[in-house]
Structure formats: C-alpha cells, structure tokens
C-alpha cells in the first residue's frame, strides 16, 4: 500500500514551506499562510516566578504554518484539541497577532490591512454567549449588519435573506435566550453571513449539536454556504468524518505543526478507508485464514458480539473497490457474512499514522 506520507505528505510539506504569497498567485487564493508562527506565554506558579523572575517561557501554538486555500474551496483543518486550529483562525480573523510569518486573506495582510481583511472574512465565533441573548434573532442580525456598514432598506432585506438561508425565518422575532443550541449555531453562521463575506471561518460548528442536527447542519454547509453562496470555507474540526464528508482538501495539524495537506480523497483512500469490520459465523474459515497468511488482509482481530456472531476487524488496502472483491471472494468460498462495513479511523490513529509515515518518508529521503 502506498501511504500518504511517502507520496503526498512529505512532498506537500516541502512544497508549502516554499510557498510565498507572491509565488503562490495570491489573487486566485482566498487565503495564503506563509511561515506563520505563534507562541503564548506559559502561565507560571508564584513560586516559579519568584525563583526565576526574569524567565518568560512561551509555548509554541503554531509552528511555521504555510498553506494556501483557493477561492471557493471547502478546506478542512483537522486536528485534536490544542492543535492550534482556533489560534490559526483567530490569526486570520485579525484577533491574534502572529509572532512571525505573513498571512493574507483576499490579498490583504492580516496585520497591515486588518480592517480590509475584516471586510472580506467573517469568523463564525462558536461561542453562543457572544450573541445578544435578550434580543431577537432579527435584532441580532440587524445590529451586525449595521456594524458591517450596511445602511437603509438594504439592512432589513439582507437580514431577511440570511434568516431564510439558515432556516430561522419562522423564529426571527423570538429572543435568542429561547433558542436551542442548534438554532444558536445557525444564528452564529447567519451573523457571519450577513456581511456577505468571501471567506468564512467555521470553528467546530457542530460540537454542541446532536447527531441528527449535526448531519442536517453539514448538509446545509455543503449545499447552501459552499454551494449556493459560493463562500470559501475553512472548517476546523476534530472529526475526520466531518472533513471527509465536506471538504475538498484538508490540512492535518497537531501541536501547532502542519503534518500534512492533501485532498480528502487521498486522505480517505490512504488512511481512512483501510479498516473494515466483518460480521461472520466463520471467523476461522480457511479462506479467511489463507488471506491473512498471504497478506491480502492484515491486522486481524476477532471478538464475539452479543448475538453470537463474530466481529473480525481487518486492514485492507485498495479502497472500496478492493473491499468488494474480497467480500465476493469470501462469499464464493462459503464464508457466511452478515455485515461488512468500513470502520472510521479515529483521529488519534490518523495523526499517529501521518506522523509515523512522515518520519519514514524523511528517513528514506
């Protein structure tokens, strides 16, 4: 199997390290980051401060991040908590100043042209408390439309349009305090959309939603925001499934480092779609054993399920096409199969693999 590290990750990292705004044709890129680094002061105890009063230790949060996001792209930033996703977004939103490197949004520098950046970019601040809870949804959006420089009848028209887009027209006159978490999330998105931004930053937008609302919300993001509104969307999440479902390209961040960038297709193919669960009554069937011996399937683990069937977890290279061939072969040879499904790769495993393969790629190089 060809890993993402050997084929995609190492060259990608090399390529983005060389990227400069000028060289990367920033006109066609909505967002360009070039060597962005950021560290924050480490909070120390009183004892440490008295012992070492002159020290000012800092923790790196972003380390030399370079990447470019094309106009209209749905781009994912995948990483666990503390990876630096939120800091990266706040840097783009001009709310955090980088220590070094440059970042441009719509061609404007986030430090030198902060006000122009704010005219093309809108962060969806996921904190529900940042809404005005005693105002209605309409009044919240009306306020932000005016703060974004809209005047006269345009304000009401735009607010109505945006409420329609996020499906809150029926509750426009309800105060936000009476909203559910899902409705507040939609209102936060509406607040960002009211300014008609070219670039939308979404920081874990489904974290407080139940699974059904989260699925509906993802459909809304894909069809409406990215599709009909044509926004460039940067989505930060720790859900690999969310990225695979929504994004065309993805960057994997861990502890402030950019581990990989690539298309979600290659990420899914090389890292995500190789784990499967097979439910059978013949876990010891010779055909299955032979496949393991020949190395067709790998890392076989078995356990009995409550209803008497056995679950066999396996690694299988080659994507869904190859998986279907294996299932057909097993059935043909008499293995009774009740269910066969892809097992989503946990984010921690995915990052482990990228780190491991990146290291392997570097040692080969």
């Amino acid at each position, binding site marked *: 199997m060809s890993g993402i590290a050997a084929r995609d990750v190492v060259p990608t990292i090399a390529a983005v390290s060389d990227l400069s705004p000028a060289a990367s044709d920033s006109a066609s890129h909505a967002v360009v980051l070039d060597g962005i680094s950021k560290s*924050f002061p480490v909070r120390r105890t009183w004892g440490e401060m008295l012992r070492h009063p002159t020290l000012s230790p800092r923790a790196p*949060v972003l380390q030399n991040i370079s990447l470019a996001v094309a106009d209209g792209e749905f781009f994912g930033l995948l990483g666990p908590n503390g990876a630096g996703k939120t800091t990266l977004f*706040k840097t783009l939103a001009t709310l*955090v*100043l980088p220590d070094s490197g440059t970042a441009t949004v719509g061609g404007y520098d986030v430090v030198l042209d902060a006000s122009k950046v704010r005219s093309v970019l809108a962060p969806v601040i996921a904190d529900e*408390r940042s809404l005005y809870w005693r105002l209605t949804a309409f009044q919240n959006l009306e306020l932000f439309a005016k703060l*974004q*420089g809209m005047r006269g009848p345009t304000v009401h028209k735009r607010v109505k349009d945006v409420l329609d887009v996020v499906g809150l027209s029926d509750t426009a006159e309800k105060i936000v305090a009476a909203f559910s978490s899902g409705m507040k999330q939609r209102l936060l998105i509406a607040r960002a959309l009211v300014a008609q931004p070219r670039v939308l930053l979404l920081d874990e937008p489904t974290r407080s939603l139940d699974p059904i609302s989260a699925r509906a919300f993802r459909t809304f993001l894909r069809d409406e925001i990215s599709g009909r509104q044509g926004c460039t969307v940067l989505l930060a999440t720790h859900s690999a499934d969310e990225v695979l479902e929504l994004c065309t390209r993805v960057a994997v961040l861990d502890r402030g480092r950019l581990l990989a960038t690539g298309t979600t297709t290659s990420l899914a193919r090389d890292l995500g779609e190789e784990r499967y669960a097979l439910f059978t009554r013949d876990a010891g069937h010779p055909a299955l054993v032979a496949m393991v011996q020949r190395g067709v399937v790998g890392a076989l683990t078995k356990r009995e399920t409550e209803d008497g069937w056995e679950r066999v977890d396996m690694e299988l290279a080659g994507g869904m096409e190859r998986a279907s061939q294996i299932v057909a072969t097993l059935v043909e040879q008499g293995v009774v199969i009740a269910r066969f499904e892809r097992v989503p790769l946990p984010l921690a495993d995915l990052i482990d693999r990228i780190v491991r393969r990146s290291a392997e790629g570097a040692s080969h190089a």
Partner: protein
Amino acid sequence: MREALALIQASWRTQRSYRVSIVLSILSLGVTVLPVYFVSKALQPYVASSIANQGGNYFGFLVVGFIALIFVSTTVSSIPDAVGAGIGTGTLEALLSTRASIPSLLAGMVGYSFVWTAVKAILFLALAMVLGLHLSLAASLSGILILVLIVLAHIPFALMAASLVLAFRTTAQIPSVIMIASGLLGGVYWSMSAKIIPGWVHAMANWVPLAPGLRALRQTMLNGASLSSVMPDVLLLVGFIVMLNAIGFLAFTEALKYARRTGTLAQY
C-alpha cells in the same frame, strides 16, 4: 457614528427587557432627592457663607454636584465595565471582527449608559425643581457644554482602567479612586474654598478635573454666569482633556495590541 447608534439601540432593547430594573432605577431617584433636600435644609445655616459665591443655596449646590458626580461615575466605570463584560461573554471578539472602528465600538458600547444617565439627571433636576431649586435655564446650554467637558476630562481614566482590564483583567481600582477623589476633593459636598479646608488639600484639588468643572458648572447653573466669565476653569478642563486623552487612547491601543499578542481577547 451609525455603528455606535446601532449598538446604543441594541443596548436599549436589551435594557428595556428588564422592566423591573428600569422602574426601580427611576424610583430610586426620588428616594435620593428627598434626603438630599432635607439634609441640605438642615445644614444650610452652617455652609451658607462658604458657598455664597456659588449660588448660596446648599440644596442647589448639592444637586449640581450630584449630577456632575453621576456623570463622572458613568464615565469612569462604563468603559471598563463594558470591555470586561465583552471579554467575559465573547461579544468583544465578535464586535472586533466587524468593520466598525474601535472608537465607534467603544462609543456604542457605553453610549446607552450616558443616555440613561442623562435621563436620570433630567429627572433628578426636575424633582429638585419641584422641591424649590432655582436654576438659571438661560445658562443651561453653557451648563451642558461644561458637563460634556467634565465627561471628556474623565474618559482618559476610563480608558486606562479599560486598558488594564484588557491586559490584566483588573481596573486597579482606578474608577473607585477617581470617584473618591472627585467626591472628596472635587467639591461635590462642600466648597473647596471654605476656610476649614487645609491648604495642602486645596493644592491637591487642583489636580482633580471635577474641581474646576464643578466651579464653572455651579457658576453658570446657579449664578447665571456667562461662559466667558468661567473661562479660566473651562480652559483648565480643556487642558486636562488634551493632556490626558492622548495618554488614555495610547494606553488602550497598546492594551488591545497586547491582548491580540497574548490571545486573551476572549479569556476572562
């Protein structure tokens, strides 16, 4: 300016949803005016000589002093309070993500407090007039101008306190210190020219912006003096405004940069 008005409108919409709070706030004015009226009546014979050149009526003297003091209180506390609340709720970050300028946002965040203070001041004055206060209405324009200058002279202290909130999450008691200094040395309760006040206290009072402000305000509102006749005090106030505002705005700009560098705009 329109951005500021939009924020003031939002604050009004929020506040009017707390109906009991609004009613109690208005009722408390009546409760405040009455004790002031009776206490001033009781003390009138003792203070009459020291306030002879400032209207001579202790009730009027106190009413004008209280009105100036509630504006000072609103000025020095509203900006740090609004910034602190904005950090705590995350609204500050949301506001700073918009295209609105920082001065517009600050004006909008505290504008409602000033409008509400003005409404309370008018009601306070009206109640006081019902109780027999005589004001020179012809001088009210000059009075409003002096009140605006008093507010402007105290904005730098508010900006410094807000800067400390932005950077270190504390006001370092600046609003309290200003309120105590203004109350004791600004001449709210007694005339700073009274013989009983020691010379060194009088010297300290020269550094309190409310002192010249109140002198000028009482001269115009209670004695009907013209603006030109109180010009020395007005110029002193303008001096405070010019000198302190540059420091205040610089402190706020640097604190905002510091918060952006340390990533603490939304961390309380």
